[in-house]
């Protein structure tokens, strides 16, 4: 047996390119469905873990998936906005803690998450350096964002303009970095966190400018009455909030009407959650409240359906690959007929000669299986990291 295996191994080693191609083909066809299954399972775990840690999510009526992807993973376009009043309403109900989210702007491709300090508690995020944001214009970076932007406490970041050609649009705001979060292996790692009011300033809903009552602004004043001063465009608007100008920053109108992309609701109890869900069931409601885990489950069902189609395609491919491998082997045997005859002539039994051929097939299959197992182990070991990298990219 050992000698038959030796002969088989020598043949395979001598025809190493053909052997390697055969092994790679069979290994891939075995690995594809298994590896895909591992990846999908790990993706599902990664996706649902984030969704499961977000009990309820409120947002404007529209696509639930878009709302969840934007609010939990900072992916997709910003959904239609709801208002800050919804966060106040939830908080006032006493049923749940409300965490506002306004995720619309970016700084160097990183999402700027306008929220409150409660977000860090809800997501169990801890500071690795610095302190939480305390005043307007301050920001805290996720670990990956800090690494990629090479920024830390004391540095500053500028929000990206929404459109270079929109002259009447939002001015970039220079934000001071005051803290960096510990790595959480979630989309939070790549985010820039600011107070929701800072996000509104980036949008232009709040602003700070030169004191119109000051003598230096006199040339910009067009008219002045007891309760109103009108100035022209030469008035200096601040694009950075400092200790010197912070008092000039103000918001016009009622904050309750200001936009939010979502509100995370953390119910006091299961019962509170059910009551809260019930309150938003009416058709007259302008907002929707949903359980993110249900939305992700629906998404995963779609992914699993796609996976089954992919697996069906792989099965067809597997049949074709194995048929090709069998053909390669059969042609090889035909080409080696003389060699096999020699083995028999010099004293090898038919079964020993067949044993050499069978051993070659077995060795190829074993090596292919080992390769597939190795690839699956690698997928299992590094799949989560790859998925996180994909989700964080």
């Amino acid at each position: 047996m050992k000698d038959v295996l030796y002969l088989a191994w020598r043949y395979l080693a001598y025809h190493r390119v053909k052997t390697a191609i055969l092994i790679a083909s069979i290994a891939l066809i075995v690995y594809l469905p298994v590896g895909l299954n591992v990846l999908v399972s790990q993706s599902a775990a990664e996706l649902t873990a984030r969704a499961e840690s977000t009990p309820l999510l409120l947002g404007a009526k529209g696509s639930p998936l878009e709302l969840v992807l934007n609010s939990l993973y900072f992916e997709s376009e910003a959904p239609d906005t709801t208002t800050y009043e919804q966060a106040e309403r939830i908080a006032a109900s006493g049923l749940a803690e409300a965490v506002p989210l306004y995720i619309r702007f970016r700084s160097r491709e990183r999402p700027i998450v306008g929220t409150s300090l409660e977000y860090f508690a809800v997501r169990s995020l801890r500071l690795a350096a610095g302190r939480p944001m305390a005043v307007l214009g301050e920001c805290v970076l996720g670990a990956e964002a800090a690494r990629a932007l090479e920024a830390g406490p004391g540095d500053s970041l500028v929000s990206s303009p929404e459109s270079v050609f929109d002259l009447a649009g939002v001015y970039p705001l220079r934000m001071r970095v005051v803290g960096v979060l510990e790595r959480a292996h979630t989309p939070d790692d790549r985010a820039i966190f600011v107070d929701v009011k800072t996000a509104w300033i980036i949008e232009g809903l709040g602003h700070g400018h030169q004191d119109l009552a000051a003598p230096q602004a006199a040339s910009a004043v067009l008219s002045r009455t007891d309760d109103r001063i009108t100035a022209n465009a030469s008035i200096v608007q601040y694009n950075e909030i400092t200790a010197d100008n912070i008092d000039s920053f103000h918001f016009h109108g009622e904050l309750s009407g200001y936009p939010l992309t979502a509100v995370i609701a953390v119910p006091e109890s299961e019962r509170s959650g059910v009551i809260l869900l019930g309150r938003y069931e009416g058709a007259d409601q302008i907002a929707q409240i949903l359980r993110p885990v249900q939305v992700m489950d629906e998404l995963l069902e779609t992914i699993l359906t796609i996976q089954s189609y992919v697996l069906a395609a792989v099965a067809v491919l597997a049949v074709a690959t194995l048929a090709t491998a069998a053909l390669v082997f059969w042609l090889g045997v035909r080409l080696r007929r003389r060699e096999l005859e020699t083995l028999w002539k010099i004293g090898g039994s038919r079964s020993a000669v067949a044993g050499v051929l069978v051993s070659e097939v077995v060795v190829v299959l074993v090596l292919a299986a080992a390769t597939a197992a190795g690839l699956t182990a690698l997928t299992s070991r590094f799949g989560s990291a790859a998925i996180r990298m994909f989700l964080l990219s």
Partner: protein
Amino acid sequence: MIEIRDLDFRYGEGDFALRVPELVVERGERVALIGPSGSGKTTLLHLIAGIALPRAGRIATDGVALPDLDDAARREFRIRRIGLVFQEFELLEYLSVLDNILLPCRISPALPLNAAARERAVALAHGVGIGEKLDRMAERLSQGEKQRVAVCRALLVAPGLILADEPTGNLDPDNKERVLDILIERAQQSGATLITVTHDRDLLERFERVIDFRELLS
């Protein structure tokens, strides 16, 4: 001693038929077998080696009628008692020189692959001038070297009968002489019977007896 009487062989239902009324080769005799291509010389060697089986007649090697043995016994007899050399060398290109010489041990449980076998293989290789190339792959050898490896493989078990089918057919004159020298010398040393099919009339004087196949069949 090889003894053939009234041998009748036919390939399946084909037209080719071989009938040998009588042939006796004494032990230790060196015989050259000549004749036109396709006349059945190789088939006769196969019959003597028990590779092919006759339809009728008697064929015995050292008193053993191989057709009367079962397949396993015939194989064991062949691997222990008969050395085969082929015109096309029939080496396995994916094996080294040493592995090719030891091939009978690897393919048959009747011959254990032990230190003694290895020592004999190495000694044979040195004896025919390829001792320095034991690890070289067979495909990288010259034609003459390949045939010398094939001869070593045939002589591994010190057979009592050496059957060589045109062993010099693919060799240049120098190598023809050398390979034939080796075969004859080894046969003489071990007292083995040597039957060689050849078309090379220049070599016939090296044999004790030359059998013309046409006369043999008549």
